[in-house]
């Protein structure tokens, strides 16, 4: 489908936002409430607006700091492989390099083993700053490996998605097949009766939503996160439908029965830590 038009849309929005979000001085105009807020206060509130609770996007590294005990992975499983360019897609190699430079990652994912609230857990986080967090061979492979490892060591799995890009167009059909690959790995995790918590953050779309992101035993989302299959612009252009306010936001999905809960960033770790013990020891 045409959901891949989506990344362009979000990229534009987010990068436009970023201009106002992160000036190099002391204050930021919050895109949620338009108030001027001290950066220090935003940082203190885990990169949310202390006035309106707007959740700023955060990179994978920060997400891991936020969730893992002591803010670190005990063992990082990602970083050993990087994307090839199977289609020889124009500018793909450059885009990977750019994403790498921006995030310090080999691809749009960081994953490994950590403890959360003392419980050993397999944790993966996708990173929007690396090509919109889109899933190509590397994300597919890293997630499949992590899940297989979790099955072997009987660990629960937490995946935090920030993948507005969905399946990565630059790897063509190969990206699409990563949806089948990750979903099949999760079927094995489910058969092993191990808990999988999927955390959806802003934005999550396309082939990522339609695979591992929506397969959680528990699915939670951060407030106001954009979560979709087809992007709003694609829908407006192809079907010419008028879309309601708050469409495809976390609250909209909760109302329609697609999420278990919406959890504020400040409570995210605690909520996950409370749930993890229900997984097999």
């Amino acid at each position, binding site marked *: *489908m*045409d*959901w*891949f*038009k989506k*990344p362009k849309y979000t990229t534009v929005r987010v990068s436009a936002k970023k201009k106002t979000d992160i000036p190099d001085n002391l204050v930021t105009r919050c895109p949620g409430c338009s108030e001027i807020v001290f950066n220090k206060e935003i940082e203190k509130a885990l990169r949310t607006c202390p006035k309106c609770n707007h959740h700023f996007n955060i990179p994978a590294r920060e997400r891991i700091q936020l969730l893992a005990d002591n803010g670190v992975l005990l063992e990082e499983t990602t970083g*050993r*492989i*990087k*994307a*090839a*360019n*199977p*289609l020889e897609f*124009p500018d793909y190699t450059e885009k990977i390099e750019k994403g790498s430079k921006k995030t310090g990652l*080999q691809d749009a994912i960081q994953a490994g083993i950590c403890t959360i609230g003392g419980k050993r857990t397999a944790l993966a986080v996708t990173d929007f700053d690396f090509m919109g967090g889109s899933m190509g*061979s590397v994300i*597919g*492979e890293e997630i*499949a490996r992590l899940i297989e490892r979790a099955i072997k060591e009987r660990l629960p799995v937490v995946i935090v998605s920030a993948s507005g890009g969905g*399946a990565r*167009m630059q*790897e*063509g*059909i*190969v*990206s*699409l*097949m990563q*949806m*089948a*690959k990750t*979903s*099949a*790995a*999760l*079927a*094995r995790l489910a058969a092993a009766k191990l808990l999988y918590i999927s955390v959806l953050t802003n934005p999550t779309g*396309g*082939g990522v*939503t*339609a*695979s*591992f*992101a*929506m*397969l959680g035993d528990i699915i939670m989302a951060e407030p106001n996160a954009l979560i*979709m*299959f*087809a992007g709003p612009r694609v*829908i407006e252009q192809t*079907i010419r*439908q008028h*879309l*309601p306010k708050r*469409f*495809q936001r976390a609250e*909209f999905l909760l109302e*329609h*029965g697609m999420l278990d809960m919406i959890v504020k960033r400040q409570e995210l770790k605690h909520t996950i830590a409370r749930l993890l013990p229900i997984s097999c020891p």
Partner: protein
Amino acid sequence: MAQENGLEFEKAIIELEKKIEELRSFTDDQSLNLEDEIKQLEERAEKLRDEVYTNLTPWQIVQISRHPQRPHTLDYIKGCFEDFIEMHGDRAFIDDRAMIGGVAWLEKKPVMVIGTQKGSDTKENLYYNFGLPLPEGYRKARRLMKFAEKFGMPIITLVDTAGAFPGLEGEERGVAEAIARNLSEMSTLRVPIVVVIIGEGGSGGALGIGVGDRVLMLNHAAYTVITPEGCAAILWKDRAQAPRASEILKLTAPDLKKMGIIDEIVPEPRGGSHRDPGAVIQSVKKHLVKELGRLTSANIDQLLEERYNKFRRIGFFVPADG
């Protein structure tokens, strides 16, 4: 037989074919002898067909895969099976007409057939919602697959869709979840699954019924993560560059076979299935009989292991330091 709806690149061929037919009927009516002239035109037409159809570009293949007169799921159901009893609904909300399913008999054995259905004209397309399934279509498919698993029936899926319906309803009712659930469950269903891409394989909406032990693809079908038009719009902000995008996307059957995405190519009549639907339907039937014969005699646990590995090994990456 002359075609009604010619594609741009085959206009010359179709004009010639029409002329030949005209001359033929003229000879019949007037008992004139125009055999020589007809023969000459036939030769010219044959030469032209050779030129055009043996070197189809990916974009031409995309157009053929979308040809309205191309045989669709129901044509295959009618032509491949001895009997078919259609089943409806997801048991929760509606019956999605874009997704057809039911029990069919192939060589006297029951199988579950599920496929996306496009129409051949506007009226039919409105009825089948242009072959764009809603979440309920995928949930109906899943229900029928579980039914098949319960009664030990192999599953055949026929894929022909531009994708899942991109609209408010689909998003509200969780089309992403419906597709994801199918991907996960199809990987573990304890009956053989054969997938045939018969026309358009449009991204997640196609994959939502596209996980199986064997994935076959018609020679002029197209299977892609994004439409060439969509890809062109992103890359060059110009949908008219779709022909260029279809070269890049590697969406043809031979390319996908090379990359290990599909297992086998089912040949089509020259110029596309619509030029001889009967032949291609019989050819698909033959393939199905062969595949099911092999799969149904295999050990199911081993089959599931192979099914897992089939998708597990798809991916192109290199060592990070290399």
